[in-house]
């Protein structure tokens, strides 16, 4: 297991870049400050208030930059900033002296901001933007050890999978907008009935679920998450347990009032969540790398969370959801940090080697034990309470039996994994030689695990505290009603949930005892099963092969072929447009024209004919000039003096420029051959199609609303009598700015092209 040997080596191999080294504590301090700033919002939000604050961002699109602080988002925001502060403190020490540690701290902080943006967004588009930012920052973090091919692959895989989901999500949001007419969360959440009855409900649900499931790594799109463990441990602790992967779950909870309550919602969430939970807990047993084992238990937790959002109304299920969410974030972040400390202290994360570390690393062992007991769901830890509520909620659900079965199976497996990860490495005898002599980590690395795991115990002993500040407000927000949350109790009497818990413990102990045998059996089985990870590779290979194939077909390396492909496509588009509109009643009539109008038309025709037929450069230039002047005459005849002047001036410059360069180029030679007959047919086809479309356009009455508006407002509002100029510099000034920027860039680019000295490549060199 090469992956299990510490990544410390992978990152430490490079010479340390010390830039920003002294400042790595700053992100942690800022995160703590954000946590402290959010804290005062707690009492009013717990009292049922919803705080909103916002500013217009893109008013014309209805996009506001606004913040929504209610029970759900505040719980998430506190977890993100609180755990963030601890993880960044850990990271500052963990990455000390390693390559680009300053950059690492910056990425981590940026990620935290993006994540806060997701949970606090009050607008679907704002939410989407931050959602994508979390994907991008997580890409940078997973691929942080970019010298390693495996890191790069994992990062790209995570980016592609979550990026595809992100696109689906955007499409879903836009569909929601078409139904509801607003991107504002307040409006969307209040329009649940409209959404559920809309014919677009199913596509919306599928797209939103695609976004949420990819982000929260639900089966069968889960494979990127275990791979993402290629990232340094603080990243795994933060992104891939406590925060980013919960974004999908958060989204489902956020949109719960708007989308939940249908059979499709119920079944898809139950099945995906349940299968993910059980599959992941079985996979977790297989792992020997502690970090991988934790990754799969994270998957299991995500599956469970999705499972409990499936029901539309049960307050027990949602209470269970919120309780488990908080509990899981606390113990999972703690455990990842513990594994990071173990890795740091021993140089390995291989469960087969580690044992008896408690003597060398007492504090770590203490934190691991607390967090592990919480994970296993033993009393009096908060994990026990969460599990009890989950069981109680499961019994209440529409698909109660299925959910209970899923929950029981995955909890028992979780119990066993907790034993493997949290107890086994620390107790008993050393099972093998560790690369580094085990030693305790520094306080910065211990603060996180200890604080988080002690919190898990404290919340277990004082469930009402957790309930008041973290759970109840969230439950109310998810359900959209007040006072719905069920009480969290350490002792609720002998009931079904307690019996189920006891069964879980019994099963868990059996599984733990047999886990080595099970692991080997599963591994033998696993080699025969198709791997989704490898399937993803094949999918990417196929995509690349397809790209290569069409590139070979379309990009032959000959300019004339490129042009031919482009023009054939153009012709197809034009003809398709003609067919789609149907041949309108085009009446060609012999127009009554002034002599000068006939004259101009003939002038342009003659010029065109000369350019096409001549083999002399000078004659062709003259022909171009004639066409240009003819077009300028058209402009001046039909009331466009500004355009005509511009055209004439440009024509002068074109002739000057072309004359300067063209006389230095070799003379034209007549081209013949069958190819030119094809070209001629294509040219005539496109010309004919353009004329036909133009004639049809002219049959349709013109919409002059915009022009009328400009005509009426030009003088009273923009104080200009030349409407064309007013449009250019006032009404559409931003456009004009873009256009002059293009002109300036063309000039600079041509300058660069002409002035750069390139060693002339002789034909012999190329051959």
């Amino acid at each position: 297991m090469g992956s299990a040997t510490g990544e410390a080596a992978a990152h430490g191999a490079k010479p340390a870049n010390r830039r920003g080294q002294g400042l790595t504590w700053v992100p942690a301090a800022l995160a703590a400050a954000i946590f402290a700033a959010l804290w005062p919002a707690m009492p009013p939000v717990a009292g049922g208030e919803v705080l909103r604050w916002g500013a217009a961002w893109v008013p014309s699109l209805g996009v506001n930059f606004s913040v929504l602080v209610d029970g759900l988002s505040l719980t998430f925001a506190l977890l993100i900033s609180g755990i963030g502060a601890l993880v960044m403190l850990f990271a500052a020490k963990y990455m000390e002296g390693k390559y680009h540690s300053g950059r690492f701290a910056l990425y981590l902080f940026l990620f935290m901001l993006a994540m806060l943006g997701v949970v606090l967004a009050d607008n679907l588009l704002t939410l989407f933007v931050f959602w994508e930012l979390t994907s991008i920052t997580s890409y940078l973090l997973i691929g942080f050890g970019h010298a390693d091919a495996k890191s790069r692959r994992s990062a790209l895989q995570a980016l592609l999978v979550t990026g595809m989901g992100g696109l689906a999500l955007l499409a879903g949001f836009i569909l929601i907008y078409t139904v509801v007419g607003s991107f504002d969360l307040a409006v969307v959440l209040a329009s649940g009935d409209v959404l559920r009855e809309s014919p677009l409900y199913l596509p919306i649900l599928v797209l939103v679920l695609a976004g949420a499931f990819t982000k929260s790594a639900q089966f069968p799109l889960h494979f990127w998450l275990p791979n993402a463990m290629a990232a340094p441990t603080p990243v795994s602790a933060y992104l891939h347990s406590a925060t980013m992967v919960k974004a999908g779950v958060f989204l489902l909870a956020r949109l719960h009032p708007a989308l939940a309550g249908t059979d499709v919602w119920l079944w898809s969430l139950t099945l995906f969540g349940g299968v993910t939970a059980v599959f992941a807990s079985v996979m977790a047993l297989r792992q020997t790398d502690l970090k991988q084992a934790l990754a799969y238990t994270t998957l299991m937790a995500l599956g469970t969370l999705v499972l409990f959002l499936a029901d539309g109304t049960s307050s027990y299920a949602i209470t269970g959801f919120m309780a488990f969410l908080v509990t899981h974030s606390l113990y999972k972040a703690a455990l990842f940090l513990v594994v990071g400390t173990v890795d740091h202290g021993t140089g390995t994360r291989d469960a087969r080697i580690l044992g008896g570390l408690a003597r060398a690393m007492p504090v770590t062992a203490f934190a691991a034990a607390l967090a592990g007991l919480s994970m296993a769901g033993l009393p009096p830890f908060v994990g026990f309470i969460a599990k009890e509520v989950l069981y109680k909620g499961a019994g209440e659900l529409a698909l109660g039996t299925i959910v209970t079965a899923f929950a029981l199976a995955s909890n028992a497996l979780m119990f066993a994994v907790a034993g493997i990860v949290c107890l086994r490495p620390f107790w008993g005898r050393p099972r093998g030689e560790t690369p580094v002599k085990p030693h305790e980590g520094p306080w910065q690395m211990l603060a996180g695990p200890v604080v988080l795991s002690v919190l898990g115990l404290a919340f277990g002993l004082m469930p009402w505290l957790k309930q008041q500040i973290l759970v109840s407000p969230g439950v109310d927000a998810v359900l959209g009603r007040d006072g719905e949350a069920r009480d969290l109790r350490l002792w609720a009497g002998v009931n079904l949930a307690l019996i189920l818990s006891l069964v879980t413990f019994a099963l868990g102990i059996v599984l733990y005892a047999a886990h080595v045998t099970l692991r080997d059996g599963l591994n033998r089985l696993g080699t025969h099963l198709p791997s989704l990870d490898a399937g993803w590779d094949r999918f990417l290979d196929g995509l690349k092969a397809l790209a290569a194939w069409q590139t070979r077909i379309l990009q032959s390396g000959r300019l004339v072929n490129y042009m031919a492909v482009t023009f054939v496509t153009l012709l197809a588009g034009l003809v398709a447009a003609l067919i789609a509109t149907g041949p309108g009643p085009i009446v060609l009539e012999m127009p009554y024209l002034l002599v000068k109008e006939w004259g101009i038309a003939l002038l342009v025709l003659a010029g065109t004919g000369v350019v096409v037929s001549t083999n002399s450069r000078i004659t062709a230039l003259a022909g171009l000039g004639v066409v240009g002047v003819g077009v300028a005459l058209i402009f001046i005849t039909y009331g466009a003096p500004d355009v005509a002047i511009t055209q004439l001036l440009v024509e002068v410059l074109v002739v000057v420029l072309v004359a300067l360069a063209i006389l230095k180029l070799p003379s034209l030679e007549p081209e013949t051959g069958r190819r030119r007959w094809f070209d001629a047919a294509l040219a005539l086809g496109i010309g004919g199609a353009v004329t036909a479309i133009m004639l049809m356009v002219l049959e349709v009455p013109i919409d002059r609303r915009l022009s009328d508006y400009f005509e009426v407002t030009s003088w009273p509002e923009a104080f200009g009598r030349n409407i064309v100029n007013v449009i250019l510099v006032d009404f559409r000034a931003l456009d004009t700015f873009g256009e002059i920027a293009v002109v300036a860039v063309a000039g600079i680019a041509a300058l660069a092209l002409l002035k750069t000295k390139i060693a002339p490549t002789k034909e012999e060199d190329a051959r």
Partner: protein
Amino acid sequence: MKSVIVESGARFLVALLLVFSVYMLLRGHNLPGGGFIGGLVGAVGFVIQAIACGTESARKALRVDPSNIAMAGLGIALLAGLFAALFGDALFTGQWLFIGATEDSKGLPLSTVLVFDIGVYLVVMGAILTLVFALEEEA
């Protein structure tokens, strides 16, 4: 092909065209003209000088490198657009100041719109001269 007649004629023409280009620029808001046309006229003037007396002399007459003119113009246009933000308007909203305005006359109008058009003028002239000079020197 140097010719004394062309050279001295060109000098005169350049001066005339430059004055004319500024005239076109300034009258643009109310009559045919504007930054694009003005810039083109100005560019044609220097192109004539470059052809008649060589780019060396045209560059000297211009004093500033034409690509710098284009970039300065772009910056001026952008500033004119950003100016509106100071007053809380959307970007590129024209801001007007009428000096000595009375009931019937608007006085002397000053506006960011004119500044923007000056930016257009400079970009068009600078970019075209950049191109022409480069082509003439290299070709």
